[in-house]
Each structure stands twice: as C-alpha cells, then as structure tokens.
C-alpha cells in the first residue's frame, strides 16, 4: 500500500513527460518538465533516496529549469514560432520515431522481464546523505574530480560560445554556480 505514492508519482511523471514532448509552446513544455522532475523526486523518495530527491528538486527543478526559463524568455517566442512548431509536428513526422521508440521499449521490457526477480531486502530502508557523502569522498573521489573537470569544461565552453552576447555570460555563470 505504500506502493500507492510510487505508482501515483510514476503515472504523473509519465503523463507529464508525454506532455513535454508534445507541446507546441516551449514554456508549457518547460512547465511540464518541471512536473516530471518533481514527480521523479517523489519517486526517488519512495525508493528510499531522500537525498537524491532533495537534490532533484533543488538543482534540477530549481536551478537548471530556471536556466531554461531564462533562455525561453530571451528567445522571445511568439505566435509564428507556435505555428511553426505545429507545422513541424505534422502527424507523419511521428511515425518513424514512434516506431523506433516502441521497438526500444519492447526490447527494454523484454530485457527487464528476463531479469531475475528481486530477492533482496524487503524493506527499502532510506539511504541518507551521510552514507552517500562517505562513499562520494571515499572510493569515488576520483569521479568527483572528474565531475568538477566536466563542469569546468562546461563553464569554459559556455563562456567561449556565448562570449559576444551579453546573455550567455550570465548563463554560464549560473550553470556553474549551481553545483
């Protein structure tokens, strides 16, 4: 019965994801994306990962999405863009991707089914940030370093790409500042 929140969150996430993919107005899609992220945070919580759920909300739904919002604002989209999106999303366009995605879904599901059923711990005792932190700065310290390199690279390249415009400088600053 404590499956219920999980299922609920799952359904919301899936539905919202579909909405993201099919919206013709960018802001709507963005908002649905936030919904996806929030419900995923719920799923994480249900799976016993509160720390991940918090990070999902703070960094993803908070910082990264704000980034998107800024960009959408700067793009200054209007009616013509909406029409164009509509035009781009003609029904015929969907056939190929749907087919491919469907195939992938079937293949993945088959793979899932082939997995042995879980026999591990019955209870999903939550794993707190302390455990994660010990692990992160213990054996995984190298990957932390790598992640920092990645972020540095992201910073540098975002700065380089957006050097000549006034907006990108701010963006890159935000992106790196979040983590």
């Amino acid at each position, binding site marked *: 019965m404590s499956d219920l929140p999980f299922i609920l969150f799952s359904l919301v996430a899936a539905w919202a994801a579909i909405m993201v993919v099919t919206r013709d107005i960018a802001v709507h899609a963005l908002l649905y994306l936030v919904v996806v992220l929030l419900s995923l945070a719920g799923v994480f919580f249900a799976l016993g990962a509160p720390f991940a759920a918090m990070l999902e909300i703070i960094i993803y739904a908070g910082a990264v999405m704000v980034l998107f919002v800024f960009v959408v604002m700067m793009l200054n989209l209007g009616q013509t863009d909406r029409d164009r999106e509509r035009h781009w999303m003609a029904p015929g366009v969907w056939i*190929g991707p749907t087919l*491919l995605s469907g*195939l992938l879904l079937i*293949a993945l599901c088959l*793979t899932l089914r082939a997995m042995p059923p879980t026999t591990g711990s019955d209870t999903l005792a939550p794993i707190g940030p302390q455990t994660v932190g010990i692990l992160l700065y213990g054996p995984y310290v190298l990957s932390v370093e790598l992640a920092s390199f990645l972020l540095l690279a992201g910073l540098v390249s975002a700065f380089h790409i957006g050097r000549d415009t006034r907006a990108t400088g701010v963006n890159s600053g935000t992106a790196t500042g979040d983590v």
Partner: protein
Amino acid sequence: MDALLLPLIVACPLLAAGLLFMSAGRMPPLPTCVIGAGSVGLSALMAAMLATGFLRTPPPAGALHATLWSWMQVEGFNTRIAFTLDPLSLVMMLVVTGVGFLIQLYAYGYMHDDPGIARFFGCMTLFVAAMLVLVFSSDLLSLYIGWEGVGICSYLLIGFWHTDTANVAAARKAFIVTRIGDAALLCGLLLLATRAGTLDIPALLHIAATRPADLSAETAAFLLLGGAVAKSAQVPLQTWLPDAMAGPTPVSALIHAATMVTAGVYLIARLHPLFASVPAAMTAVTIIGLVTLLLAAGSALVQTDIKRILAYSTMSQIGYMFLALGAGAWQAAIFHLVTHAFFKALLFMAAGAIILRVHHRQDIYQMGGLARAMPGVFVAFLAGAAALAGLPLLTAGFYSKEMILQGAWHAAPLLWAGALLGAFATAIYIFRCLFIVFFGTRHTEPHGRTGATMAMPLACLAVLALTGGWMEMPDAIAPVHLLSHLLSPLFGAPMPEGPTWLLWAGSLVPLAGVGVAWLLWRPRIQTRAPPEDALARLARAGWDFDTLYDVLIIHPFVTLGRLNQTDICDRLSNATAATARAGGRMLGRMQSGQVRRYAGWIAAGTVVALCLGARP
C-alpha cells in the same frame, strides 16, 4: 666438301636477304636484283654441282648429312639443326633453286620500276632460303622453321603492295589459314616427339617402320596431314590460295605454284613410311586429293581472272599429287611436283607478261586476240597449257599425269575415273582460257614489249615444260625411268604398269577436252560474258567455302570478341569497385550532419544491440 656445300646453298640466299633488308631500300634496282637473283643463281650453281657429284658418286648411305648445331637440348628431348641431302631433297633442291633463279630473273623485268624492289627481292631470297631449309632439314623441328618461314615470306609477298587493304587482308588470310594447319602440324610434332623422344626424321621413320601403328601414330599422321593440307591448299583449307593471287605475279609463280604449295606433298613424301603404316590416313589423303582436284577444276572452269584460273588449277594439280600420295605412288607424286613446277611457273610468268602489257588487267574477257601481238608469250603459254592439259607424247605433264593415273588405277579404278574426269576438265579450262585470251577480237591494245629478262626465263621454262617429262616414260612408249630409279632407294620400286588401254584413255581424254574447249570458245562463237547461272556463280566463288567459314567461325568469333571488347572479367572487378563506392556513398549519406538522424541511428543501434544481447 659436299657436306659443306649443303649449308652454303642455304646461307647464300639468307645472307643476300639480310643484306637486302639492311639496305632499307637505299640501293638502286639493278644491284638489288643482282644480289637477289645472283645469290639464288649461285645457290642453283652449287646445287647443280652438288647434284652432279651426288649422281656420279652416290654417298655411302645414300644421303649426305651436315649437322650444323644443336638447337635445343633438354631432358628427354633433343633437336638439332641438321641438313640431309637424299634423292628426294635433291630433286626438290634443284626445283627450288633452278625455278627460283629463273623466276628471280623474270622478277627483275617485272618489278624493276617498283620503289619497294629491295623489300621484294629480300623477301623472295628469304623465301628461297626458307624453302631450302624446309627441303634439307633432317629434323622435323628444323623443317618447321622452313615451313613457317615460307609462310611468313608468303605473307609478306602477297601483301607486297600493302597500300591496298584488300591485298593486306588476302595476305593475312593466307597466313592464318595455313597457320591453322601449322598448329595441327605442331601438335603432330608434339605427339611424335612425346612418342619417340626425338624429331629426327630417320629415327622417326625407323620407329614407324618397326613398331606397329597404334592410336598415337594414327593421330600423328592425321595431324601432319592437317598441316600439309593447309600448306598445299587442299580441301577444306584451300580458300586462301585464290586470294593469294593479290601478290605480284612472280610471287604467284614461285610461291603459289612451283614451291611453297607443294611443301605439303613434300612433307607427306618425306614421311611416307609413317603415312603408309596408317591406312586411314592414306585413304584420307586420297579422298582429299580427289575432292580438291575435282572441285578446283570445276571452279577453274568458270573463273574470269586469269590468275585465279591458274590458282584453282594449282589446287587441282596438287590434288593430283595428293591422290598419287594416297595411292602410294610416291614417285608419281614427286614427278608431277617437278613437272608442275615447270609448267605452272611458266603459265604464271606468261600470264604476268600479259598482265604487264595490258595495263594490269586480269580479266580474260577484257583481253582477247593477243596471239598476234605477243607471239612469244603465246607460244610459251601454249606450251604451258599443253603441259597442264597433258597433251600426249609431247609434254611433261602427260607423262607425270599418266604415272598418277596408273597409280590411281592400281589403288582403285574409281579413283582413276575421277582423275580422268579431272584431266578432262583441266584440258577444257586451260584451253578455254587460252582461246579467250589469245584468239578472237582484241579488247585491250597491248603496249610495250616483253623484255629480255622476262623472255629468257619464259623460254627456258617452256622448253622444260615440254621436255622435262622425258626423264620418266611408260614402258609402252620408251623404257626411261630416270626419276624412279633415283628415288627408288627411298620409295622402293615403282608400281607395275597397268594395261595399255589406260595409256590410250589418258592420251585421248585431254585431246577431247581441248576439242570441247574449241567447240565452246572458238573465236567465232565466243560469248563475251562468263556464264551467270547459280552453279557457275557458286563454282566461281570457290564453292562458297569462304562464306561458310565466315558465317560459321569468323563472324561469331569476331562479334563475340567485339562484344567482349571491354573484358567481362574487368567488368567484374569494376563491379566490385562500384559496389564499394556505392557503399561508401551510402555510408557517407548517413553522415548528413543532422542530429536527429544520428540520434535515430543510435537508437536503432541500441535496439539491435539489445536484441542481440537478449538472445542468448
């Protein structure tokens, strides 16, 4: 001394030919001719010396040998360049050098104003050298050198006037058709060499005489026969000879009448024990001879070109020789070879003299009435025609043909009847030609004179054509057997003579033929046009063997070759290249730079990888 003379006889014209080719046409005509004819004359002189020596004191083993050098010496096979002079090659040597010299002399008169005279004499002397190699060789492989050598000289000389494409084509045809026979001959040599380990003629003949004929001997005999048939223009490889008349007339006289075309006869006579041991081959020789003799005579009856008449006549006469060979009358064949060399060379040279004086026209219907304008040539032609027809008692052709008829009678009376029919046709066609050319109204005014260098050989050969037969006579006339006696160590005793009425038949039939010719083409009632019915056309075209071969062999071969000009194998490798290129282009099209496509490919790859991974 004598053995040394043997290679010298060959070397003399060979050196002269080398000299003439080296001069590259910078020498004036007279020295050219002196070198050319002189060398052959010198050869003839040496040949005569050799012959007198040979006849006066025959060498111990009946033959002179001169081994020059070892040609090829490898494991299991050994061949030498070696010459032998025995009675058969003695006769041939005398014919080749003697007639060759006369024709060279004549050729100076015929060709002296041609710019390519050095090339002409070079090829002619080279031909004489090659023919002598053919005649002298005591090893079949060195005989093959001469055999092919005369072929290539024939090619060069038929195509002597090479600016005319037709001449070039005729030359090529002559060489290729004979080359087919040569390939058969070569196969025969391979077979013999494999069987015996040597191509030395005495050794081969010894084997043929001692070992019973097996399959390989039979095959070898037939393969050699193939070579002889092509060289001597017998059915079914006879088609090149009429076209070969495109060459200058001295060439036709020397190569396509007197010497080269009789090489096949010589080959069979030289290897007669081998053939005699294979009855099937002998029958084949007989049949080929008879068929050629009749077909060619039929063609000669309706030709309009004087040289083609003579060409078909040559085929027909060599048919006689083959008939004699097949019947086992070896002496008769060689005898006819000799007399034929005389009278046919004479006829060609007389024809050449006529052609030269009627503006290079060769159609007999455009000549006519020439007897008065050129009496000397007329007499020479008459002598040649009489000898060819075999008019009794007086002419050489009579005696040799008579001998062949006797031989045929002994083999089978049917052959005799066929040969007699041939003799009848021979008399008709040659006298038809004579009547049309020399009698009746004149259609072309002759010009100039026949020069001394041309007249002298004509006279010599005319005498020979009449008297050359007296060395061998039937017992019923006079018991003279010079040639048979000379050749009998080689061929054994000559055949016994048949009943006397054969002689009567053989004498009267040619006369009847002349009579028929007179009835049909005597000056009064001469028609001015050749017969034009279907049979005549067929016969004039040489019974359409050419068309047959063209449709059956040459055309498909060439067409297929043309179709495959770009090489189907190449197409294959090109297809590989094209596939690779198309594949590359397709892969290249995948690199379109469109992100979504890349994503799609990644997704598809993932699906495939998952499916593959999930399977086991």
